[in-house]
């Protein structure tokens, strides 16, 4: 699970709390993500999974506690925060491709404008990445001309183009038509095999079983249970997790 012998965790959350008004959405969260680890976060809706995921690149602020990424406390704002975000890829439920830019431009924008990479180099790399996710032929189309599954694969290529240290996936297949889920999961499984550090909020148990190193079960803003996928799915320790699993695995 480690690269280059570096055993310090890539992400550490210490006593993280978050409130939305009166709602306590993250309750004293302690969690580490190791380098190269694939962490799947599952649990009932409204349990704080997406919020947890979004705190890791500070799309959500936290009220107290500490988040350390790659040995450094998350910067609160400004250039430091922008730099951190450029090192953490994010794939959204609703893809969020830039609607007025072509597929190729979506993938090259970050490298050119944030990293300062030459346009030609970024273009070449973008085409390699689009090739990898199977969208190279659509490079000059606009996002709205692609199917949801294709758009989400472009979103993954856009995240990869920044050479991130980690990618956050916030319910990447929840907005997809059922027949398009697998094509996205296949790309994600490929990434996992290549050793990418991934935090994946998902309801896809198949993906969790095949690709995850660890499953975190969240409910009511708390981490209720953490285990290996096999242990978790066959031998959940808490009633809350068993109850959740019985509801999703029966159909």
């Amino acid at each position, binding site marked *: 699970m480690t690269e280059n012998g570096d055993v310090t965790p890539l992400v550490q959350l210490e006593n993280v709390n978050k409130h939305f008004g009166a709602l306590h959405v993250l309750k004293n969260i302690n969690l580490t993500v190791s380098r190269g680890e694939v962490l799947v976060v599952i649990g009932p809706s409204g349990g704080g999974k997406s919020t947890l995921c979004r705190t890791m*690149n500070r*799309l959500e602020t936290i009220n107290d506690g500490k988040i350390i990424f790659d040995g450094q406390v998350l910067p609160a*704002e*400004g*250039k430091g925060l*922008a*730099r*951190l*975000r*450029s*090192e*953490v*890829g*994010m794939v*959204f439920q*609703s*893809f*969020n*491709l*830039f*609607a*007025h830019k072509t597929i190729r431009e979506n993938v090259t*924008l*970050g490298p050119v*404008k*944030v990293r300062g990479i030459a346009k030609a180099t970024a273009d070449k790399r973008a085409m390699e990445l689009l090739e990898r996710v199977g969208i190279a032929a659509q490079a000059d189309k*606009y996002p*709205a*001309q692609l199917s949801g599954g294709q758009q989400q694969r472009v*979103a993954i290529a*856009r*995240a990869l183009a*920044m050479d991130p240290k980690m990618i956050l996936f916030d319910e990447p297949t929840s907005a997809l038509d059922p027949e398009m889920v697998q094509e996205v999961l296949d790309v994600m499984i490929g990434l996992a095999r290549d050793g990418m550090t991934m935090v994946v909020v998902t309801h896809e148990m198949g993906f969790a079983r095949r690709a995850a190193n660890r499953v975190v079960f969240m409910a009511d803003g708390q981490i209720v249970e953490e285990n290996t996928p096999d242990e978790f799915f066959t031998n959940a320790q808490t009633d809350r997790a068993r109850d959740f699993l019985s509801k999703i695995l029966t159909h």
Partner: protein
Amino acid sequence: MDELIKYAPDLGLGFLENVKLSIVAAVASLILGTILLAMRVSPTPVLRAAGTFYVNVVRNTPLTLVLAFSALGLSDQLGLVFSETPLTNSFWIVAMGLSVYTAAFVCEALRAGVNTVPMGQAEAARAIGLTFMQSLTMIILPQAFRAVVAPLGSVMIAMIKNTTVATAGGFLADAAAVMKITFDQTGASIPIFLGIVVAFMVLTMPIGFFTGWLSRRLAVVR
């Protein structure tokens, strides 16, 4: 009809001043309006408050008062002088007042456009490491502009017609001023009146058609 033909050269020169004012105010108000918008959507509370204050004060002040204040207050009292030649000075005073006034409407049209851009676009921009200004100028504004090309056209049409109150700012050379001077000398003339109306329509109607066409062409498909 004879009066129109007789006074057409003078009226034409006056109308040219309306066109010149329009061009200056269009450029300046689009730039200033965009800056105001950036202030109104910025993460800095002071800038947001300043932008909101500006828009609400200027938008709710009659244009004639904005122009009169520019001429009598800023220029005469506070010594803001663009040129030693009175006519040139009043041209720039009016151009400034009109730009400042129109910018508030440009800002609000653009803000309506920003509201059509889904939240996820800004989040994705931030997530790849773009700064606030980069997200605004590369992701949010281009989509916002496209959404409000037609309303911006309406703002520009209103601004062009507003050049006819330049007299309020002491600029007595535009078509409306020339018309009034002519009427004072010869009595009111319907042909002259209609002639100026047609001249404005020739200027503004294509803007309406063009921005309507442009908004369909540039529409961001989601």
